[in-house]
């Protein structure tokens, strides 16, 4: 972390979210520093995806505040579309645009939203496709790609906007086991390059390798938060101990 990183780039304060009777977020607070890699894990229904999605306001919290790069994402004074341009998001189900080629998937947003000239957007896109290892598929439609390839394109699409932060929502959960590695490799590379990352994932090997901090959530609450060594080596909360026993 650099000296300028004294301020958190994401700051979640006392966030609450209700889905009817269900409390998805129960007074959650979380700071993420620039360049930091935070992994969020927990059983399904623990609110981890809701927390991640509330960072770019795909979910709106009912109470509490979420500040990204100094801007309150829920304030009507701030243009959420501008804030989202700095927050790359990768989904469990890839969500590539099926009617656009791989290259167009990557150039669409920069050309439209950043007014990047086509030639520049395309050369940047090809660079990114090379980085995620599928430069030979630039002109095919997503339906031609395997799940692992689609997810790598989805990561490249998010990176094409040059976001400050990358959010990953269970990026490998929908993949066949043999394809998980290729996606995680891309994510590890990204982490090594210093990208600020918040990942919801069950890949504990990935968490151990790249996370600066791991958050354990259950029933909408953050129950434990620690560096990987202590998180796995000396889990304190009984729920976490049980969780780790089940998945490791």
């Amino acid at each position, binding site marked *: 972390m650099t000296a300028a990183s004294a301020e958190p780039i994401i700051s979640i304060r006392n966030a609450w979210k209700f889905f009817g009777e269900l409390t998805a977020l129960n007074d959650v607070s979380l700071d993420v520093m620039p360049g930091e890699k935070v992994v969020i894990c927990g059983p399904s229904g623990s609110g981890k995806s809701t927390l991640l999605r509330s960072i770019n306001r795909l979910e709106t919290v009912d109470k509490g505040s979420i500040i990204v790069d100094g801007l309150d994402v829920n304030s009507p004074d701030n243009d959420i579309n501008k804030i989202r341009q700095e*927050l790359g998001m990768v*989904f469990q189900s890839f969500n590539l645009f099926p009617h656009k080629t791989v290259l167009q998937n990557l150039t669409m*947003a920069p050309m439209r939203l950043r007014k990047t000239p086509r030639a520049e957007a395309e050369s940047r896109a090809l660079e990114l496709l090379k980085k995620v290892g599928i430069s030979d598929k630039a002109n095919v439609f997503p339906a031609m790609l395997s799940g692992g390839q689609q997810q790598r394109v989805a990561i490249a699409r998010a990176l094409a906007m040059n976001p400050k932060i990358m959010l990953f929502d269970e990026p490998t959960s929908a993949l066949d086991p043999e394809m998980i590695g290729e996606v995680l490799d891309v994510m590890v590379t990204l982490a090594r390059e210093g990208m600020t990352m918040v990942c919801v994932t069950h890949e504990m090997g990935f968490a151990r390798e790249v996370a600066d901090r791991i958050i354990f959530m259950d029933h909408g609450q953050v129950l434990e938060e620690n560096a990987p060594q202590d998180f796995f080596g000396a889990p304190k909360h009984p729920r976490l101990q049980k969780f780790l026993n089940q998945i490791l």
Partner: protein
Amino acid sequence: MTTEPQNVRIVITDGAIIPDPKERRIITAWSISFVGALAALVYLCTSRPDPYWRLLQFLPDGIAVTFKVTVLSILCSIPIGLVTGLGRLSRNRLINLVASTYVEVVRGIPLLVQLFYIYYALGRFLKVPDLLAAIIALSVCYGAYMGEVFRAGIDSISKGQTEAARSLGFNRAETMFMVILPQAWRTILPPVGNEFIAMLKDTSLVSIIAVADILRRGREFASESFLYFETYTMIALIYLLITLFLSKGVSIMESRLNYYDRR
């Protein structure tokens, strides 16, 4: 795991059966109808040119009028349908209610009654020319149907597409016009084509308010010659051939829109 089911087929009304673009066989319901109707037409015109060939020469004006009414009405009903469909999907309660009420009211009144209403009933306050009345009635009526088609088509695109577009920073309108509608279009096209065909048939109703369409021209011919059987046989064959042409056209357009599928 693929992204989402995208081949939702919406079957709405009584247009015509759109041939399946993947159907490769030669003998199909479509080809039997088409060849049969064409053969009947040619046979009648050559074997008994007196009423039949004469009739065929008498009708082209009517065919032109039928097409004119159909095309103009479809051009008006598509934007009405798009606005209605978006309105029905709007989270704004008022907009939603206005669009839904429009659909509800229009669907509850027979087209023929709507036509009479605009031409005769409203004629008390504002004289609407017959052709314009026909186009207004058809556009308003079919706009409501189209609205349902657009709504269902837009609804068929997975939520993930919207979320992906919004998370990149696209606003609502950009998301709708750059991501959702281009995908919804191919789900929408077959039922829109179907509506187009249904509308072409429904234009026969306008013959009642003195628009000189195919049916009107036929009735003129029949009332002079008393050849009812011959006249209406001819008219049925002509309508059938036109709708068969159109349904094939829709089918071809549909297959063109599937370009981004696997293979």
